[in-house]
């Protein structure tokens, strides 16, 4: 195999869900396709890396501007129409998208960027929980909704947040386990996700 192709296949195989077979298929497809297709793919990948960053307020993904001095802010955080009373806490940016699709929630989000994982050394500090606490302390939310998955790690993270946020005297709720226990928020379909938000319960 020629070195250039080898290099591409190696890079493709590092992507999630891409095995040797699919890498090969993509590689040979690009060899046959118009050059413009390759350029567009390469440019969009580079663009993604350069232009997209995490929102400095909520941790969601945000498109950056040319102005380097401006800290990145996502679409939701910069939308003045959104309800300032409620904050929904999720694991990953793609969870924001899932909740947005359901249309049941019009408040603000906070993206943890993961869950508790002491074995991997991920705890309160890595998840930026102190920053989250400050964000909540400084705002005037009426309700904080914890929407981590009903998995062990999701429950543990929610339990920690409850302890952390309790002194702030703000109403804490947890999405209903309408999702079958052990299911992931990312795999839940729109309907069950909507039911989970609507059926949320007070956390004690």
């Amino acid at each position, binding site marked *: 195999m020629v070195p250039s192709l080898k290099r591409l296949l190696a890079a493709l195989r590092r992507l999630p869900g891409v095995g040797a077979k699919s890498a090969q298929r993509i590689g040979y497809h690009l060899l046959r396709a118009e050059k413009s297709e390759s350029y567009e793919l390469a440019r969009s990948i580079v663009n993604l890396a350069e232009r997209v960053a995490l929102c400095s307020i909520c941790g969601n993904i945000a498109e950056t501007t040319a102005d380097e001095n401006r800290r990145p802010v996502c679409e939701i955080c910069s939308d003045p129409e959104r309800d300032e009373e409620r904050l929904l806490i999720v694991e990953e940016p793609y969870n924001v998208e899932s909740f947005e699709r359901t249309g049941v929630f019009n408040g603000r989000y906070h993206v943890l960027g993961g869950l508790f994982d002491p074995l991997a050394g991920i705890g309160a500090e890595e998840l930026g929980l102190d920053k989250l606490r400050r964000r909540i302390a400084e705002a005037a939310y009426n309700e904080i909704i914890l929407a981590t998955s009903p998995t062990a790690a999701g429950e*543990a993270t929610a339990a920690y947040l409850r302890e952390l946020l309790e002194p702030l005297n703000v109403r804490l709720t947890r999405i209903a386990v309408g999702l079958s226990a052990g299911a992931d928020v990312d795999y839940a379909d729109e309907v069950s996700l909507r039911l989970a938000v609507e059926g949320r319960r007070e956390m004690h």
Partner: protein
Amino acid sequence: MRNAVEASLDYGKRRGGCKASVLPRRRWGCYTPSMRLKSLELDHFRIYERLRLELPPGEVCLAGANAAGKTSLLEAVYYLATARSFRFAEDRDLVRWGAQGFGLRAAALRDDEETRLALAYRSGGKTAAVDGERCPRLSSILGRLLTCCFTVEDLDTVRGAAGRRRRFLDLVLGQVSQSYTRAMGELRDCLRQRNAALRADPLDRAAVTAWDRPLSRAAARIIELRRAAVDELAAPAPQIFAEITASRHDLRLDYEGPLEETRLGAADLEEAFIELLRRRFERDRRRGCTTAGPHRDDLALRLDGNDLRRYASRGQQRLAMVALRLAEADFLHQRTGTRPIFLLDDVASELDAETTARVLPALRSRVDQLLLTALPQDVGDLSVDGTVLSIDGGRVRQ
């Protein structure tokens, strides 16, 4: 409520004896389907380089000298049912010396319905397939091939450390309850994480107790399922013991854990368990691990009030274990509506002739397919009701 829902997820529905009219019936009364192994293939498993074996219907006795590969063959069947060895061995010990991994395949019949099972082990891990389709997780293969065994190592199940008896419960329940397997997976995850948090420096107490809720939920579920299993195993045990010893004794089984005195139901158990974790926090912190839970519990075996785990002759321990294994066959049958395959290893050297003569009929009345092993000179004593195959150096002569 959650109970009923979860129970319905379990592998076999409890089919209420004669009431289940959809089941075919034998002319002379209730009919229950049985499990039967039709063919077995081994690659690089223990002494076997390659084995392709068709099993005739009925009882099969494998006869061979010591080290011929008899136990290993039964071990392969059991491994296909549970994804674990009955010899308390690590997976890599099962790989034939010099090979990279092993493969096991079987065709099993539940009545006329055939299932093809495959399990492969490489250093990277285990993969399973059912009817040619790769299982997304290994646990999908559990319960497809119902088996029950009595082996030389069962003596350790009675007298060994508590881990042996927990393993016994895990293997029995793993075959009948998907929610048990799931809860065990959750328990393992939670324990590893909680223990890592306990050892973190500096210690963040809330990062430890954060795991208490999911841990307790899994623990409560496991304890509940184990208790129910122990009660079901205990019920017929004295009568079975009498059947195989021709004497009356009181054989008792009890689940042992720090919350057993309370006899709380599953919902309250979860709260009680959280409380227990809270009380033991200091101890856990000092030891750097979670010191109470289903991973520390035990199964108490008592004969006429004496603790069999400590105060009993080997003979009594062995007999109690045979009784327990027969009760297990009943349990698997009750829970799944299917009679399991029974693997009986080297019974002639384990039990005296009289006991063997009582155990075999008790077994034959419970299962359809009995696979047993014996030294060539002992085969005569077993009055095999089926086929005798001779086995030598990892080869079977058909």
